[in-house]
């Protein structure tokens, strides 16, 4: 290879970062096993079919099992700025696909109501400026990264109720469902 070819090769390497690039960020929160349509009579059948629920809520005269999973796909397009070779402008959008099962029982364990649903929603479009070799998040997913309320249950018991801003009573008494992506 002569000098001219070597020079062209070097220039190609130098200009590669200036090309547009793309990224794919995938996130999976939880898992709900696909099942055939079934009509359980009590919570035992639900437990044996779907396993331990993702969240349990206890009401005055009923209790609820929730199974929830979320898949997030965030494709991104990165554009390098010629004047700042190390930085990249990233445009991205994210879509969440939810799989949700809801089962309500009497306190004796008999089924009251059930619902199974599957939907997707946009989490928004955004852009970011970052280093060219870093995958930046372009959509705010902070609500998906909060600890599960179950893991705060013991901590909530230790808090002095007169001093704290939030009582965590809903968590301690399990009066609410803890859904993925739902902030406190």
């Amino acid at each position, binding site marked *: 290879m002569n000098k001219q070819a070597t020079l062209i090769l070097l220039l190609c390497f130098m200009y590669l970062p200036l090309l547009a690039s793309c990224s794919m960020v995938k996130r*999976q929160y939880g*898992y709900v096993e696909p099942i055939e349509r079934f009509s359980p009579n009590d919570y035992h059948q639900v437990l044996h079919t779907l*396993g331990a629920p993702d969240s349990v809520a206890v009401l005055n005269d009923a209790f609820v099992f929730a199974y929830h999973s979320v898949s997030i796909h965030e494709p991104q397009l990165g554009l390098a700025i010629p004047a700042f070779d190390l930085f990249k402008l990233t445009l991205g959008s994210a879509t969440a696909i939810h799989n949700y099962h809801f089962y309500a029982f009497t306190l004796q364990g008999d089924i009251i109501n059930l619902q199974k649903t599957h939907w997707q929603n946009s989490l928004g479009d955004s852009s970011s400026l970052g280093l060219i*070799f870093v995958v930046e998040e372009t959509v705010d997913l902070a609500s998906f990264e909060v600890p599960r309320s*179950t*893991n705060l*249950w013991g901590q909530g018991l230790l808090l002095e109720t007169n001093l704290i801003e939030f009582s965590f009573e809903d968590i301690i008494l399990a009066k609410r469902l803890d859904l993925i992506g739902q902030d406190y």
Partner: protein
Amino acid sequence: MSQKYQIIIAVILLGVLSGCVHYSRDAGVENLWRQPQSFINGVTTSQKVLAALGPPSQVLTVGNQTVYYYLKEQVTREGLLLLIYNETTEVSVFDRAIFFFDEQGLLVDFSYSKMAEPVE
């Protein structure tokens, strides 16, 4: 410099200009229920479950039943960073076990979460 060496240098440069990332974190209790256990409905007591699995993440009261709920959260992130294409995958697994006990502390029913399939 021969063409062979130039190709080798080009491949090395491509390797230098790429990267990968991996991290994982856990939260919650240790998922001892994934180890061999012998829990039997109507026989196993709540004390035996506690001795085998440790303190639960959450204790609930459902009617006249007591519920022990265990949760372990495992997050793994893997990424491949190349020149013109990057891909990262983060998987959060919520490994769970739930036990129902009657007023005498005997096991009524129990279940573990179904294991997640890897993201495609």
